[in-house]
């Protein structure tokens, strides 16, 4: 270098400048791509949900119908499994860029309302863009929190007990409306003794089931802003659970882990399992016994504590297209054709238009419809337990700590303490 410096220097500086400009350019284009409208008034909204491939197929079919009816609205879609969905959503929401409309659940309503992420759909109802009529059994109330409409239910579901009918029959036990926990556990023992199969796959880790038990006893899992039960309550629930694992009445939790993603009930390693009624379709495809829905055991011989829960559609508070979001939600919950396409994938269809349009032809789906009708007829449906912000983290902690406890890795008393400490942190943030 050096001797013919001036020419070289200029080139050098130019090159350096160019590389800087290129970097700057890359940065600006990186920030671009703001979804929105184009010149002809066409609007694009982003819709995201969690679920399996099957749900995605049905939703995409429904969206085609929507886009035909509203040619000026384009829907861009994205889906993951449950855990990945909420991780991504949280990051997007923190960055101010979540999807315009998305699937939601009751556990997340307060959490994201507190953080001003959720669109209050009330004004859209008033403006006539969102129709809130014809919802079944008052299920639209699930999305109403603190005077706001934060989500519109797409389906209804309730906790249920799924049983292996063949095993129950062979053991000579019967599940009847109003049976008590004592009767239920006696049945499990009989199944274990006569059929050499554990009776249940691990009831003590399911937050929504423990909620029902607490409700039967005049409490609930949550209050508006915290836990609705004491350490002594949970100690008893988990100690009994642990003893039942030891006695072989409940499946060895290690075995349950190993079987995942298959369920212990479907693999024949348990004779019953508590879960949401709309999840039950999986057992028929996974296992080769016959599976039925049975009543939730009671404390007083009558009350099950059940209520209707639901998946919902919610909007982003700062979406550029609140009207289109409302129109999309309205279409997705009311259009009869969409009802036929979706079926009971996300629970019993929430509006009468869709519910009447879809007539299930297969046994599992017919059973779900009958189950919810029976529960409603028996007058067992109550108001949903409130879900404070952080309920989702609490649910995950409940399941995990219960798992540690049931394998004997953690003492019951320590597990209870740990859960309460984690819950306190989760509900405070």
């Amino acid at each position, binding site marked *: 270098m050096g001797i013919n410096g001036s020419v070289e220097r200029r080139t050098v500086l130019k090159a350096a400048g160019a590389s800087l400009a290129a970097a700057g350019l890359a940065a600006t284009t990186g920030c671009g791509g703001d979804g929105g409208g184009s010149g002809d008034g066409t609007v694009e909204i982003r819709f995201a949900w969690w679920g399996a491939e099957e749900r995605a197929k049905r939703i995409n079919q429904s969206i085609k119908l929507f886009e035909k009816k509203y040619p000026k609205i384009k829907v861009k879609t994205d889906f993951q499994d449950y*855990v990945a969905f909420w991780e991504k959503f949280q990051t997007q929401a923190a960055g101010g860029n979540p999807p315009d409309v998305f699937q939601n659940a009751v556990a997340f309503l307060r959490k994201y309302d507190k953080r001003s992420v959720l669109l209050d759909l009330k004004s859209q109802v008033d403006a006539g863009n969102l129709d809130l009529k014809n919802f079944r059994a008052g299920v639209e109330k699930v999305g109403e929190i603190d005077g706001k409409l934060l989500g519109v239910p797409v389906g209804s579901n309730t906790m249920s007990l799924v049983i292996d009918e063949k095993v129950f029959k062979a053991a000579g036990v019967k599940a009847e409306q109003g049976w008590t926990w004592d009767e239920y556990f006696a049945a499990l023992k009989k199944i274990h003794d006569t059929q050499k199969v554990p009776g249940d796959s691990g009831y003590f880790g399911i937050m929504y089931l423990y909620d029902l038990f607490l409700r039967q006893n005049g409490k609930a899992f949550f209050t508006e802003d915290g836990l609705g039960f004491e350490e002594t309550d949970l100690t008893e629930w988990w100690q009994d659970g642990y003893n039942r694992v030891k006695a072989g009445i409940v499946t060895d939790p290690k075995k349950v882990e190993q079987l*995942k993603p298959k369920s212990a009930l479907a693999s024949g390693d348990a004779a019953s399992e508590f879960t949401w009624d709309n999840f039950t379709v999986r057992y028929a495809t996974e296992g080769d016994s016959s599976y039925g829905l049975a009543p939730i055991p009671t404390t007083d011989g009558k009350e099950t504590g059940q209520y209707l829960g639901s998946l919902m559609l919610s909007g982003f508070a700062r979406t550029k297209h609140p009207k289109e979001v409302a129109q999309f939600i309205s279409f997705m919950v009311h259009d009869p054709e969409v009802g036929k396409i979706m079926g009971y994938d996300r629970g019993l269809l929430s509006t009468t238009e869709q519910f009447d349009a879809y007539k299930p032809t297969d046994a599992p789906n017919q059973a779900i419809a009958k189950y919810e009708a029976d529960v409603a007829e028996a007058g067992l449906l109550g108001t949903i337990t409130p879900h404070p912000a952080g309920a989702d983290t609490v649910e995950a902690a409940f399941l995990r700590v219960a798992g540690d406890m049931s394998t004997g890795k953690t003492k019951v008393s320590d597990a209870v303490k740990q859960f309460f400490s984690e819950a306190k942190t989760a509900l405070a943030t």
Partner: protein
Amino acid sequence: MGTAVTTLIKDSPPDAPAKRPGRPVAVRRRGRRENLAGYLFMSPWIAGFLLLTAGPMAASLYFAFTDYNLFDSPKWIGFDNFTRMLDDPRWQKSVEVTAKYVVIGTPLKLLLALGVALLLAQSRRGQAFYRAAFYAPSLIGASVSIGFVWRALFSDDAAVDRTQSFFGFDVGGWVGNPDWVLYSLVALTVWQFGAPMVIFLAGLKQVPKELYEAAEVDGAGPFKRFWSITLPMISPVLFFNVLLETIHSFQIFGSAYVVSNATCGPADSTLVYTCYLYQKGFKEAQMGFASAMAWMLLLAVALVTVVLFWSQKRWVHYEEASR
């Protein structure tokens, strides 16, 4: 060039400029311009470093002392995150799992790397091919896809499980078994011994042949030759590998995350440190706590590094020193 010129100026005696007044100024000016050009060239990387590395690091140091949930502005809480961490049974579990992984995985990997390097150091036909073949797993090792392959291999009723069961030793797949799954991660890292192997090979090539010849004349057997010549001679390389692999092991994330299907389970059995950090930060939105964890990890790795450096005077043999 720039640096050469400046050192030249620095090295000249104080009275030198007086003899030829014009030149050093011009040289200096040109040097400055060249520096400017140099900085302009580097600017994308400097900007990248400041914006993408230094900035976030400073932010994370600040967050470590706050309660921050990504949405509300951070609240200063002093050392609370750190004290909470020490009381947290899951944090303790993550330390335990990580320590186990490092202590078991790293020596195994290095032993295998050294063993294979010793074999490959001998001149044989097809040596280049074998080197490439043994190195290959390290090239693809960091990818997510290999995590999926591992998961598939070690699942219930998959290849490994069937082979095991055939010999009457059924654990129902390593991936689903809390007692076994960590060893599948260890197996994954051990399998990627290529990088330290290449470094060992380079080290082995440096050992002077005369030493072996002299030892042979003195009647030393292969083991004695390895123990008294090879090992001391490659000890700097060994030290380098131990250091690098240990630091690397502490940071395990990808394989644990993918093999456990994003759960770090079953039953927290693959809850390595970074996995827990990730859960706290991105699942539970406790960014303050997660940042504090990150800085704790940095401190721990720094401490281990210091200990290793301190220990080297006991076992690392530098040729210069012995001359």
